[in-house]
């Protein structure tokens, strides 16, 4: 175990200090954040609305409103699909870019006709509760912005002296406490869509992370074969310990990369839209979360073991890269038939794909996003994935030992079968 740890430590720090890894892992998030704030600054992101805010004289000088800078952009979208509001509090008379309705029923009818994309209801006791209810048809990041309502409400609030503590807190935070509401089947569809998008993002992240960091694993194995360090290493430790150590190091690198990217994405998303996750209809159950994490971890190990096999068999990085297509193409099959997953997630094709180890990480993730997958199927699929992964890790260690030192060329398929049987 200590040797696995020694290999892990050495490989982790060796790879993490590599320029390529550092550039991708740390550089991309930094560049994305920098670019985001640069664009926001260029588009007047943090304008002082009261002083220069284009005639919004209802706000005092110095009050910044997040998202206000996007008003013109949002307004364009709102012109295509505007939003509405119903005000029982008496705070608002009119709000530019928002359509006023007298009753929620009128607003709902407009929503269902497609005249508006969402509407707010400001209750009579708003000054006590500080809550605004939002009603929307479906999730659409681009078309929903609270900025117009927010500006109008905050402007009105600042003129009053009888604010409740809750409202003062919101005012200090310069935001709104919006309670999301979904409308009937459309909302359910919106939630499904949101989950599907989440599943897609998750799957893409899994694939990208797996394929980049597994590439590092393969590259690392190749490097030691090419520079012959492997022979020195194998005189010090077992091939499987070497492989496990590398494998764990690359997994840690992959997870580090994923956490950084995901964290950056969430941060930027949070900055980009004023919608909270629950407002856009995102609902992840504990079961779904377990499934996502389980498939990410096992999927990572599975693809990593496949790359390790390629690394054990091939003699140089170029050959390895060519053969990695053998893994990538079948793994992407669920994407090619994504329509089946959305329309008929429990039909034979999605079920079968969620059982085959090479497609199951993506397939099951997609299915779990749009339907309730029976636990029996999940457990069977995980067992198949886990068992195959263990088998592949053993095979990789076996091939690594037998093939590494004996030939200078990549073996053919029949040679692989012979190598598996051969005494090392």
């Amino acid at each position, binding site marked *: 175990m200590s040797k696995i740890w020694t*290999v892990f430590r050495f490989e982790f720090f060796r790879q993490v200090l590599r320029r390529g890894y550092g550039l991708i892992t740390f550089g991309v998030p930094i560049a994305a954040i920098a670019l985001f704030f640069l664009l926001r600054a260029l588009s007047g992101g943090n304008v002082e609305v009261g002083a220069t805010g284009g005639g919004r004289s209802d706000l005092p000088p110095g009050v910044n409103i997040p998202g206000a800078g996007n008003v013109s952009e949002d307004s364009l979208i709102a012109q295509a699909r505007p939003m509405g509001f119903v005000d029982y509090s008496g705070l608002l008379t009119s709000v530019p870019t928002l359509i006023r309705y007298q009753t929620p029923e009128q607003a709902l009818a407009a929503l269902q006709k497609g005249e508006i994309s969402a509407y707010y209801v400001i209750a009579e006791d708003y000054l006590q509760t500080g809550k605004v209810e939002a009603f929307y048809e479906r999730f659409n990041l681009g078309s929903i912005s609270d900025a117009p309502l927010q500006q109008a409400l905050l402007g009105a609030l600042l003129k009053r002296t009888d604010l409740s503590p809750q409202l003062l807190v919101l005012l200090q935070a310069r935001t709104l406490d919006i309670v999301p509401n979904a409308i009937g089947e459309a909302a359910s569809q919106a939630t499904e869509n949101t989950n599907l998008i989440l599943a897609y993002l998750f799957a893409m992240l899994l694939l990208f992370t797996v394929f980049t960091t597994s590439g590092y694993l393969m590259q690392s194995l190749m490097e030691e074969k090419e520079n012959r360090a492997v022979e020195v290493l194998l*005189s010090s430790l077992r091939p499987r310990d070497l492989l496990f150590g590398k494998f764990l190091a690359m997994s840690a690198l992959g997870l580090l990369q994923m956490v950084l990217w995901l964290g950056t994405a969430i941060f930027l998303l949070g900055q980009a839209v004023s919608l909270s996750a629950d407002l856009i209809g995102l609902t992840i159950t504990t079961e779904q979360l377990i499934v996502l994490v389980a498939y990410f971890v096992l999927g990572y190990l599975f693809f990593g073991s496949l790359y390790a096999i390629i690394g054990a068999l091939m003699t140089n990085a170029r050959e390895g890269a060519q053969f990695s297509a053998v893994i990538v193409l079948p793994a992407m099959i669920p994407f090619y038939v994504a329509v089946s997953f959305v329309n008929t997630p429990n039909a034979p094709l999605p079920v079968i794909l969620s059982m085959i180890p090479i497609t199951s990480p993506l397939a099951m993730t997609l299915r779990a996003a749009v339907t309730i997958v029976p636990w029996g199927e999940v457990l069977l699929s995980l067992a198949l994935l886990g068992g195959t992964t263990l088998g592949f890790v053993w095979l990789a260690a076996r091939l690594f030992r037998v093939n590494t030192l004996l030939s200078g060329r990549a073996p053919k398929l029949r040679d692989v079968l012979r190598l598996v049987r051969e005494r*090392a």
Partner: protein
Amino acid sequence: MTNAIEVYGITKRYGQKAAVDEVTFEVKRGEIFSMLGPNGAGKTTTIRMILDIIKPDSGKISVLGAPFSEATKARLGYLPEERGLYKNVALVEMLGYFGALKGMNRRAAEQRAAKLLDELDLGAYKKGKVRELSRGMSQKVQFAATIIHQPELLIIDEPFAGLDPVNTEIIKNMIFRLRSEGATVVMSIHEMHQVEEMADRLLMIHQGRRVLYGEVDEVRHRYAENAVIVSGQGDWAALRGVIGVQPDENGRNITLRLDDQTTPDQIMAMLANDPNYSIRSFALAVPRLNDIFIRVAGGEAKIAASAPNVAEVRHEPA
């Protein structure tokens, strides 16, 4: 005391071809043992089987008194024929890694690495990387990686390849020092003069089979012709029992080949008692290992493996 290595009848086949065929030998503790053979003879395969990197199809191997185990790895150092170093890792860090894999404390390994680099005249490169080093320097770093954990058994494949005479001397002295400290050294080598100078015993493998095995001097004498080498003045052909006279390239030394009834002692007595001959030097004509190697590798002597004066391993390892 058990032998450092006992190899009994090992065979390794790849398809129909036997890379190593029924090879038996032993390496005594504390000796410098040399493995010889032409390229592709089976030396590296034999070494890899001793190291348990590959397993023999048949036969038995005992290393440091027991069949090879994971615990054995910490007690031996291996310098492979094809050097393997990380090009982009600082030398001390890399050597520390190799030491840690041999069971050393990481910090102790790095301290020892720094000391070894000083001894190898590489002290200025402790923080440097292999890609910044010359081939000879890399070779010395590889040697440092082999001995960082002060192994009991050192197996080194072509330790002097690519080294200039100065660095060869440095490595050679380190090998002698390790031997004096009790280590056993097995070296596969092509420089025959180094074998003559350094090795106590040798094994030669040719086409997977053992063809020479024994003490270095004994093997050389085994291949000695019935001849003497003299320098001086006189009519060499007139001596009784001399059937051939062959001067060397510069004419200083003359090889006198003798018939089967005449011994070198008799020739020496004749020369000492005959005033017509003036002798400056007299020596037995013992062939250089290089000549023996060429003769054997050329297929002349399958022979020696079964020669009566070859020391045989007569017992099986445990």
